[in-house]
């Protein structure tokens, strides 16, 4: 039943996107022929991943463009009370993001250096393992998704996530959404949410909102299975680390430090 529904939604989404695409472009199906227009066919990957160059991030301290872009794209509410907080992507200090990868005489300033954190879209996600209703599941392309209509709000996934990447709607989030984006659904109280690697944008052939928002190109998104991809090139050329690798979750967000 559930897979049918999901498949239906995916197919419906792709069909809708293609139809809209066709309407925009006219009868021409060969998208590449039309220069200047954004590519409208969905981005397809086998193992989506992100590489974050924290050096570039450090150069512009105080920049929150990726965070703002994500939170406004996904109707993430802004609460004044930290107890109610919901966030998909945010800044942590290096020492908190990488608790076991620091020492007393580490490179000056590194410990306080900001690191952008979000859902790691683990290859072996503990949240998916514990969810009693399969409301959170891993897609074939590696994205860990949330079905906010099925979630019962037991918060077992929050307990299981070693990265604190998940948020719960402790109260109705709708009055706290600054600028409503009608393209993306809002949530009800009592469900868990988190970063979805912008699955809805990938379906439209766009990169994640945070990646597009970063002028410094500190966030790079791509297919890890594709040897020609930018993420693979970055990982080949730079030493990159992941958060809490010892836990065996295999995060798909890499950090160049």
């Amino acid at each position, binding site marked *: 039943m*559930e897979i049918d529904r999901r498949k239906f939604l995916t197919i419906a989404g792709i069909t809708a996107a293609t139809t809209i695409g066709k309407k925009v472009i006219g009868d021409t199906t060969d998208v590449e022929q039309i220069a200047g227009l954004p590519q409208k066919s969905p981005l397809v990957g086998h193992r989506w991943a992100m590489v974050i160059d924290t050096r570039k991030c450090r150069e512009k301290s105080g920049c929150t463009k990726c965070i703002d872009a994500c939170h406004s794209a996904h109707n993430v509410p802004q609460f004044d009370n*930290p*107890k*109610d*907080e*919901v*966030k998909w992507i945010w800044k*942590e200090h290096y*020492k*908190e*993001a990488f*608790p*076991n990868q620091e020492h007393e005489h580490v490179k000056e300033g590194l410990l306080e250096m900001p690191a952008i954190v979000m859902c790691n879209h683990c290859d072996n996600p*503990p949240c998916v*393992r*514990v*969810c*009693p*209703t*399969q*409301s959170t599941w891993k897609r074939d392309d590696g994205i860990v998704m949330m079905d906010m209509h*099925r*979630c*019962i*709000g*037991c*918060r*077992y996934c*929050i*307990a*299981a*996530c*070693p*990265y*604190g990447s998940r*948020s*719960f*709607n*402790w*109260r*109705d989030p709708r009055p706290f959404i600054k600028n409503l984006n009608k393209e993306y659904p809002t949530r*009800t*109280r*009592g*469900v*868990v949410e988190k970063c979805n690697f912008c699955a809805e944008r990938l379906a439209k052939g766009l990169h994640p909102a945070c990646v597009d928002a970063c002028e410094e190109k500190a966030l790079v998104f791509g297919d890890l299975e594709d040897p020609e991809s930018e993420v693979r090139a970055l990982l080949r050329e730079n030493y990159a680390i992941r958060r*809490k690798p010892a*836990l*065996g*979750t295999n995060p798909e967000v890499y950090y160049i430090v």
Partner: protein
Amino acid sequence: MIEKALVGDKRYYGWVAFLLAVIGVGFIFYLRQLFYGLGLTGLSRDVSWGFYIAQFTFLVGVAASAVMVVLPYYLHNYKAFGKLTILGEFLAIGSVIMCVLFIFVDLGQPFRGANIILHPTPHSLMFWDMIALGGYLLLNVLISRITLDAERKGIAPPKWIKPIIIISIPWAISIHTVTAFLYSGLAARSFWMTAVLAPRFLASAFASGPALLIIMVMLIRKFTRFDPGKEPIQKLAIIATYAMCINIFLILMELFTVLYSNIPEHLHHFQYLFLGLEGNTTLVPWMWGSIILAIFAIVLLLNPKTRRNESILAVACVAVFVSIWIDKGLGMVVAGFQPSPLGKVTQYWPTWTEFFISMGVYGIGAFLVTVFYKMTLSLRGETGENEKKKEIAEEVETVAG
């Protein structure tokens, strides 16, 4: 049989009315929580489970502990527990229902709760906990119903119930084991990720459950004609003593491993509990209170002279129960989140909403157990009500005479 619970003396009606009032208050607070959301609790992004889930965990232990009267009676033919087994089973039924309710009030979307059944997920421990608890509830309802019915008719219970009773013994162990697995399988929370968690849960359950049963038997004996005699109470006391010793032994095992290995990730949680972390000392006095009560209780229980004195035994049992309640019902769940995976300590203390809703759930449990016990005692003619009426009648006669 239920009609026996509808008639009683003034004290019985008063107690039931009190419980109904507590349930009513809890229900009003629950409606508020339902319409506002779990933001009315003290929980937050970093401490996402708290008082409700802790009560659930503690009560799974109380439910499992019924096995401590069932096992000696049915496996070892220990006759002295004959009058107590049904009380143990009824306590288990009340506790499992409270467990389910505590999960229910903790859900963000309670009306979607059936999704756990509609989308069964064997890789989630919560699925198995549902099966364990549901099965245990059914077993105990069936067993108590059949045995009490036989008692009412004055015949021996049917033979087919015996294997079901035997199955209920390992099943009782399973409910607390699976509940421990909910926690100990999480790589994210080093405080819970210990193989000794399930054994510790069982040991503490087998100490606190019999301690509660002793207290309850003493109370019922005071107010009714029910009297199981001294022997079963002493036997229960010995069970509680052994279990408490094993519980303390297992806690020391845990402490040795954490303190000697000195891994900060493991150490921090214990620092939070017993010394305070980043200036947050909310649970420190409670945890030391729990330790002092445990030592106090174990001294009283181990010494045969004090254990055999029933008034001292009562004090020791209260100490055992409170000590373990603090450990499991207050410290265990919250400490898993302190510090968070990102090293942060977030203040958590249950709000009045959590308190009154929890009281409401405990009220429902107490109400059910009261009704079940009343039925049983009325059936056995041990309520003492007729006795009193007789006394009054005699008094009236003497006065009139």
